[in-house]
């Protein structure tokens, strides 16, 4: 009797189990497309790149399929090269400079467009223009604007009698600054769009209530706008950092990393190693370092997202 009972229950249990298994299987099937996609288009390249960083991967490897394992040699080679430290510092300066510039100007413009005035919509869409131009086109145009002898920028400075023809892209002390200025110009639309939509989400009542308490102008910004905008700000800044770390085409178009490596970053150096010198192993190692830095910010972003979700 007892055994019969237990047998029945075990049959029931196993049926239940198989039902659950079926459900799980179906659930898994729904996940398969996403998993396959991620494995094929994100997993494979990332793993391949990490592995390549430990291999002596040269042009020959493409034809023979052989790339000897060299351990940390690629990392040793790139870190000990004279360009690395300056590329590292440049990447840091380039990222900080671009983000600070893009964000403050972007925020100012977003706040400005919050006011209602004629042609607001038209002007706001025009702001997007730099974003719509291919980067190669923008950099070619800026290269001529910034030309030392005949560039428009120096002509204008001349007219205002402000300068003695600075070589924006040809002096080591100015090249990085010039590249940052152009990158700020390109990054403003992104900041404006996201921050503007963030501003739209702040309920008007808060300002009205604040007004009753005498909070206007700076006070309103400090105590209403800024706290309400915080989540959007952190998204903009972190995405901005990740986008800026990997900027390549703009620098290649403007200076090619010159003069004398003055505007060389980790991204341009990685490109240089892989696709100019065909040292794919070292290029991959450099790219891995860059991915690691980006990952650091991505983790911060995810963490902040999580804690923001909890607090709300």
């Amino acid at each position, binding site marked *: 009797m007892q055994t019969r009972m237990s047998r029945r229950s075990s049959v029931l249990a196993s049926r239940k189990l198989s039902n659950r298994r079926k459900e799980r299987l179906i659930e898994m099937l729904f996940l398969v497309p996403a998993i396959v996609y991620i494995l094929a288009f994100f997993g494979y390249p990332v793993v391949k790149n990490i592995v390549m960083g430990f291999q002596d991967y040269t*042009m020959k490897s493409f034809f023979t399929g052989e790339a000897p394992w060299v351990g940390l040699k690629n990392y040793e080679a790139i870190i000990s090269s004279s360009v690395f430290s300056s590329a590292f510092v440049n990447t840091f300066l380039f990222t900080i400079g671009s983000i600070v510039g893009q964000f403050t100007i972007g925020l100012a413009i977003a706040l400005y467009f919050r006011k209602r005035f004629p042609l607001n919509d038209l002007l706001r869409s025009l702001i997007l223009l730099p974003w719509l131009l291919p980067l190669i086109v923008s950099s070619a145009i800026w290269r001529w604007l910034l030309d030392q002898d005949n560039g428009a920028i120096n002509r204008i400075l001349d007219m205002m009698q402000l300068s003695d023809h600075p070589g924006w892209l*040809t002096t080591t002390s100015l090249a990085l600054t010039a590249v940052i200025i152009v990158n700020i110009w390109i990054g403003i639309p992104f900041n404006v769009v996201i921050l503007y939509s963030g501003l739209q989400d702040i309920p008007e009542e808060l300002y009205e209530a604040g007004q009753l308490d005498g909070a206007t102008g700076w006070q309103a910004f400090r105590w209403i706008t800024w706290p309400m905008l915080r989540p959007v700000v952190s998204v903009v800044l972190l995405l901005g950092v990740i986008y800026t770390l990997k900027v390549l085409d703009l620098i290649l178009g403007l200076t090619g990393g010159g*003069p*004398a490596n003055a505007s060389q970053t980790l991204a341009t150096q990685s490109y240089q190693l892989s696709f100019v010198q*065909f040292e794919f192993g070292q290029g991959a190692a450099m790219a891995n370092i860059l991915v690691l830095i980006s990952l650091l910010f991505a983790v911060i972003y995810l963490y902040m997202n999580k804690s923001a979700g909890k607090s709300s």
Partner: protein
Amino acid sequence: MTETLRASHAWTATAAMALAVAASALAMPATAIGAEVDSIRVLDYYNDSPDREIYGELLNTCGAELGITINREVVPGSALMSKVLQQGASRTLPDLLMLDNPELQQIASTGALVPLGKFGITGEGFQSQVIAASTYEGELYGLQPITNTIALFYNVDMLEEAGVTPPTTWAELRETAKALTTDDRYGLAFAAPANYEGTWQFLPFMWSNGGDETNIDTPETAEALQLWVDLLNDGSVSRSVLNWTQADVNDQFRQGNIAMMVNGPWQIPLLSSDADLHYDVVAIPTPEAGGTSVAPLGGETWAVPNTGNEAAEAMAAKMIQCINSDQNQISLAVQRQTVPTKMSDAVQEEFVKQAPKMKTFSEMVKSARARTAKLGNDWPKAATEIYTAVQLALTGKASPADALKQAQQ
């Protein structure tokens, strides 16, 4: 019953497969032995007009002579190497491949090319350095029909106006450039960007002074770099050259912003299209009077990739011979403002007769040098060091000697 059915199914499947294998095995020799190559695949980077059409016509003419059709693929210059690497990895290399001459040895070192000696092709009668660039470990892998180099272009009117003649020595170059410099124009320009173009432009100065790419940390190379620094410090050359390409330099020359420039014959069509611009070309000045101006050799070489299809490989080799016939070399050189690589008097004289503006270049090619002749696979590293040193010195970050030492580390 079901078991036997399944088994018989399996058997039919196996039999069908075996038959298919047998059939293909029978068919295989037919394609290999029959040598029925009726078309070949070609890859090159002559992407712009008129080069695209000039080569298209030549390839089709040669194809017609050999009774084959040409399936040509043209990619932009910057995309060629990655395309070749992709094709190498996926075993889809074309039958006939064009490569920029300094890149041939790198590709040959991977085993992706067939030595041309296999088809009885030698480099006899060609400019020896052109052949050196297309040779890897003693075997010839490519044949280059035409070559180019760089020289000194000058604005005839500006020199006349200033009462000077084209410089032949470094000292004269400095003086002349200074004399030609005014408030709104520079006496001279070269291109010194942070890439191989900067290296290419510096080579004639380095080589003519006895400098060498195997070791750039030498007084000879430092002297050449000092000349460039002096020209900049004199104010005769704009600092913008640090970021100018050769095309930029040419634009400035055409606009009358500079009086002399170091540039190549591929600019001649553009320059000649300006009716008001009177220009001429001389060899790049040498350190001392009577020295030999040693300029770098440019141009593309044609190679046969290792595709495993021997009949198609042999056909591609015949195409290379056709592209390099005396007649085709001269016609290509005349149309493209380049110099035939066959150095026989017959070829060169006929060429200069047809393209008088190219006389200087025809002369310069005789003493010109290939970039990869000495270093082969290590050339990209040396080339990077050279432009890095040039940039360090021209920006004033280091003296020429220190710049060369730093860059070579």
